[in-house]
C-alpha cells in the first residue's frame, strides 16, 4: 500500500526553496488539465496570429470567435452530462435543424398571420416553443434509451437521420426568413450586444463573483478546520482572475461598430461590447456547472457513469435520470438553435450539419471520458473554444475546407491520445 496520508510531513528544506511549478499547481489546487488546455489554446492563438500575419488576435477576430463558439459551447455543456452517464447523443446537429426550422417557421410564417410582423410576443412564443420542443425530443430519445433499452448510439443515430429529414420536410427544403427583429438579438451582430459600458459592468460583476467565491471558500475551510492557502496566494489568484476578465473586456471593447451603424446611435467610437450569445454561453456554463456539481441530479449522473449498478443499488432512479439528461441536452440544443437561426437570420434544412461531431469533440477535448463518469462543464466550454479557434484560424489563413476537416480530426485524436497518456501515468 502506498497510500500517502494527507499532511504527511514534507522534507523541511523543500519549504525554504522557491516553489517549483508543480508544487505551485498543487498548493493552488488548480486543475492541471485545465491549465494544459489553456496552454494549448495559447499556442493555437499565437500560432495563427503569426501565420495570419497579425490578424488572429485582433479585437475584431476575437469578438467573432467568441460569437462563433457560443452555439457549440452551449451544446457541449449538455453533452458532458450525456457522455458522463455512459451515453452519447449523435442527433444534436439534426435536432438543431428541426428545432431551428420550427422556431423560424413560427415567427416568419405562422405567428404573423395572427399578430402581424414583429409583434412583441412573437419572439417569446417562438423561443419557448423551441425550448419545449427540445425538451420533448430529447426526452423522447431518452425514454427509448432508458426504458426500451436501445443503446443511445443507435437511438441518436436514428435521430440524426429522422430530425434532419423532418427539418427538410417541414419547409420542403425552402429557406425560411426573415426572423423577428427582437429574436435576431439572440444571435449577436451589430445590434445583438450590450455595448461597452454594460460590458464593463458585467466584467466588474464577474470580478466581485471571483472575490466572493475565494473568500467564501476560505471561510468554509476555516470553519471545518481544513488547511488554508496562504493569503498572498489567494489575493494573487483573485487578481489574476479579475485581470483576465477585465483585460478581455477592455480588449474586446476596442472592436468598434461600423461608422454607419455608429452614426445611427449618435456617432463616434462605439464599441460592440460583449455579444448576447456570449453572455448566454456564460450564463449556461454557470447554470450547468451548478447542475453538475451542486445538486442531486448532477451527482446521480456522475454516479451512474461511475458504476450504474451501484447507482441502482443506492436507490437512484437511474432510468429517470438518463431521460432527464437527454431532455436537458434537447433544451440546450434549442438554445443553440435560437442563437444560430438568429445569427443567420434564416433557417435552412442543412442547419447544424456535422455539428454533433464538433460538440462531442469539444466535450472530449475538454476532458470528458467516453468510458463515462468523468468530465467537467468548464472543460467542455474550453474544448469548444479550442475547436472553434482551430476552425476560425484555418479559415483566416485560407486553408482549403477539406484540409480543415483533416486538421480538426487530427487534433481531436491527438488531444485524446495525449490525455490518455497522462491519465495512465497518473494512476
Amino acid at each position, binding site marked *: 500500500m502506498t497510500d500517502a496520508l494527507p499532511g504527511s510531513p514534507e522534507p523541511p528544506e523543500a519549504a525554504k526553496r522557491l516553489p517549483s511549478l508543480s508544487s505551485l499547481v498543487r498548493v493552488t489546487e488548480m486543475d492541471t488539465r485545465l491549465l494544459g488546455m489553456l496552454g494549448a489554446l495559447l499556442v493555437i492563438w499565437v500560432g495563427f496570429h503569426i501565420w495570419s500575419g497579425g490578424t488572429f488576435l485582433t479585437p475584431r477576430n476575437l469578438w467573432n470567435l467568441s460569437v462563433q463558439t457560443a452555439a457549440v459551447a452551449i451544446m457541449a455543456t449538455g453533452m458532458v452530462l450525456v457522455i458522463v452517464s455512459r451515453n452519447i447523443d449523435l442527433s444534436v446537429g439534426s435536432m438543431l435543424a428541426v428545432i431551428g426550422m420550427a422556431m423560424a417557421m413560427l415567427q416568419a410564417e405562422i405567428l404573423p398571420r395572427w399578430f402581424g410582423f414583429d409583434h412583441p410576443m412573437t419572439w417569446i412564443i417562438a423561443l419557448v416553443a423551441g425550448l419545449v420542443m427540445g425538451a420533448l425530443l430529447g426526452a423522447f430519445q431518452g425514454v427509448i434509451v432508458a426504458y426500451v433499452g436501445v443503446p443511445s448510439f443507435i437511438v441518436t443515430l436514428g435521430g440524426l437521420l429522422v430530425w434532419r429529414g423532418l427539418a427538410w420536410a417541414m419547409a420542403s427544403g425552402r429557406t425560411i426568413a426573415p426572423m423577428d427583429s427582437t429574436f435576431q438579438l439572440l444571435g449577436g451582430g451589430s445590434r445583438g450586444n450590450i455595448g461597452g459600458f454594460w460590458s464593463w459592468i458585467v466584467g466588474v460583476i464577474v470580478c466581485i463573483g471571483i472575490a466572493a467565491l475565494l473568500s467564501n471558500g476560505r471561510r468554509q475551510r476555516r470553519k471545518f478546520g481544513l488547511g488554508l492557502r496562504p493569503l498572498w496566494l489567494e489575493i494573487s489568484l483573485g487578481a489574476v482572475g479579475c485581470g483576465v476578465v477585465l483585460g478581455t473586456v477592455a480588449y474586446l471593447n476596442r472592436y468598434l461598430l461600423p461608422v454607419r451603424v455608429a452614426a445611427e446611435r449618435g456617432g463616434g467610437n462605439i464599441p460592440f461590447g460583449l455579444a448576447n450569445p456570449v453572455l448566454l454561453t456564460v450564463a449556461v456554463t454557470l447554470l450547468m456547472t451548478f447542475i453538475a456539481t451542486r445538486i442531486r441530479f448532477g451527482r446521480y449522473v456522475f454516479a451512474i457513469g461511475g458504476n450504474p449498478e451501484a447507482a441502482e*443499488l443506492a436507490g437512484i432512479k437511474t432510468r429517470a435520470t438518463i431521460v432527464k439528461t437527454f431532455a436537458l441536452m434537447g433544451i440546450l440544443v434549442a438554445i443553440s438553435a435560437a442563437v444560430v437561426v438568429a445569427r443567420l437570420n434564416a433557417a435552412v434544412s442543412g442547419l447544424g450539419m456535422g455539428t454533433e461531431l464538433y460538440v462531442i469533440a469539444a466535450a472530449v477535448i475538454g476532458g470528458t471520458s467516453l468510458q463515462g463518469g468523468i468530465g467537467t462543464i468548464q472543460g467542455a466550454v474550453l474544448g469548444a473554444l479550442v475547436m472553434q479557434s482551430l476552425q476560425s484560424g484555418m479559415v483566416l489563413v485560407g486553408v482549403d475546407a477539406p484540409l480543415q476537416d483533416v486538421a480538426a480530426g487530427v487534433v481531436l485524436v491527438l488531444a485524446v491520445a495525449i490525455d490518455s497518456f497522462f491519465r495512465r501515468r497518473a494512476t
Partner: protein
Amino acid sequence: MTVTSETTDRVPLVEMRDIRVAFGGVHAVDGVNIDLYRGEVVGLVGGNGAGKTTLIKALSGAHKADSGEIYINGTRATIETPRDAKQYAIETIYQTLALAENIDAPSNMFLGRELQSRWRTLDNRAMENAARRLMGRLNPQFQNLMVPVSSLSGGQRQSVAIARAVHFNAKIMIMDEPTAALGPAETSQVTSLIQQLKAEGIGIFLISHDIHGVFDLSDRISVMLQGKLVGTVNKSEVTKDEVLAMIIMGKLPGTATRTELADLHR
C-alpha cells in the same frame, strides 16, 4: 429435522418464507425459509452457485423474488427495489462493494440519500463532516476522504461500504463476503464492528462461501446447496466439520458418517 433456535417464541426481525427465484428454468433459489432475530448473526453459507447471494438480493431489493413472502417484525413486507429495502432499515454491503469509483467517499456514503441545504443544493461540507466522524470510529487511519474511491486501497473501500450501511441506522444488515478482500488487521476490525453492531441489537446476515470466515461470529448457520436450504443449525451445537458436510454433501449433523467427515479433509 432443522435444529430450532431457542428464540422461536420471539417475533423474528426478518422471516423469508418459501422464496423462489428462477433464471430461465434454473432454480437459483428453490423454496427457501430463513429467519433472523434482533442482535443475532446468522451465517449464510454454501458453495459457489448455491443461491446465497440470489436469496439475499430478494431481501435487499436488488432482484425481486418470483414467489414467497418476506416478513419484517412479523408484518408482510413488499420489497421490489433497493429503495423499498432501505425503507425497512435493511442495509446491504455487497461483495462488489457497489461503489461509484469516480466520486469521493462521502458522496458514496450518502449516494441516493444526500444531505441537502435549505436551497436543495448538496451540503458537501456536512456530508464530509459526518463521514469524517464516522470514519474516525471505523477506520481512524483513513484520512484522505476527498479523493475518488478508485484511488483507495481495498480496506479503505470496504470501510466506505460499511460506513454507508452503518450511518443510516440499519436494523437489518446484510454483509456479502465482508472480509474477502481484507488483510488480517482489517479483518479483525470488521469482526469487532460486527460484534459491536450485534450488541446494539442489529440483526446481521453474514454471507460466505467458506465456513471459516463466519463460524466464530455466527449464532446460527444456515446452509444452502443447489438453491435449497440444507438446514439451519445453532453454532454451539455443531462442529466446523459438520457444517462442512452440510455445505459439500448436503448432510445434516449426525447423518454424515465418520469416514465421510474424514474425507472432507483429504
